[in-house]
């Protein structure tokens, strides 16, 4: 991942007012994690798994933070139970940022995640936007977070191959 693309993701988080983030690093998104961890305006919590990250973000929202989860497509599967509870029982907002490995155009052997990511989000009734152009990254992250906070539910932004690499 080029650092200028990672910077766009961080710029989007900043534009959105995100001040708290949790997640588990993903090889394809590692530059974003490193930048977020260093950013003085974002409290980053590295967790042992993505479900734990969802819980940490949930608690931080009650403390007045604007939380984001940084999840791999595999990590979304790990977080599913807690995200479903947060969305469908508690109705608490959370931005979920996912580098969309496995989308059409990804040459790696990750097609599994084409079959799980969008159907999984739909099953949890978590709205999402797929971003295919890097020029749309900042605006989309901001808009997804605005919707999350207005609707009191997690909203995901999926950044695919074309946008990120």
């Amino acid at each position, binding site marked *: 991942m080029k650092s200028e693309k990672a910077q766009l993701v961080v710029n989007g988080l900043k534009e959105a007012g995100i001040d*708290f983030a*949790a997640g588990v690093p993903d090889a394809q998104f590692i530059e974003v994690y490193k930048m977020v961890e260093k950013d003085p305006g974002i*409290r980053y*919590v*590295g*967790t*042992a*798994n993505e*479900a*734990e*990250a*969802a*819980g*940490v*973000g*949930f*608690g*931080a*929202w*009650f*403390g*007045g*933070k604007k*939380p984001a989860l940084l999840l791999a497509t595999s990590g979304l599967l790990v977080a599913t*139970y*807690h995200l479903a*509870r947060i969305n469908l*029982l*508690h*109705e*608490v*907002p959370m931005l979920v940022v996912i580098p969309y490995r496995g989308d059409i155009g990804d040459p790696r052997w990750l097609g599994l995640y084409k079959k799980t990511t969008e159907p999984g989000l739909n099953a949890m009734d978590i709205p999402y936007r797929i971003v295919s152009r890097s020029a749309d990254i900042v605006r989309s992250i901001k808009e997804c977070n605005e919707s999350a*906070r*207005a*609707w*009191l539910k997690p909203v995901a932004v999926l950044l695919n191959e074309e946008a990120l690499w």
Partner: protein
Amino acid sequence: MVTRLSLLKELSALIADDVLVVSSIGNNSGFWGQLKDREANLFHVTMGMCTSTALGLALALPNRKVLALDADGNLTLNLGVLGTVANEAPKNLTIVLMDNRNYLGSNKKEPGMPTATAGKMNLEEVAKGCGIAGACTVEEVAGFRAEVHKALSTDGPHFIRARIEALDNDRPPRNKRVPDPRENKYQFAGYIQKTEGVEILGSGLGGG
């Protein structure tokens, strides 16, 4: 060995009104709701999510005491959180673990199925191994009172493992309705907004 209810009664007498309590699903939430009806309670936090939620809350509000009312089956579903707690080291976080060593025994007349702590797992030692040096175990009311008092008056993070009876045969009468998750969210978030001056709710523009 003591019962969950006897320790929760003790906790209800010890805890200041402004300590935020995050309680796990099941009898931790059900009994606490009967004993301590207050705005500072977040109930019904599901399996594997109680301590992580309390951690996020404690990090967001570093000057506010936060107490996780967790349980053995709940915590072991997401055990890695103890490592995160140790590394993040929030001074204002106390984890009280009700260790009854079984799943689903709490609503029954006989034990359900054993958790790992019914076997060889010792969660005090796990917490210490994760880096929570002061982790301890209590098995009676006086020890519980002393450890909770210490935890709420000194810097954490603290981990108190309470070995309790497997069955809750002394369950309290249900005189109060424990709020559902949505109602509880508005109550808890509204209380924090009011007492901390932070904006949590009301971020949308309305419309129609």
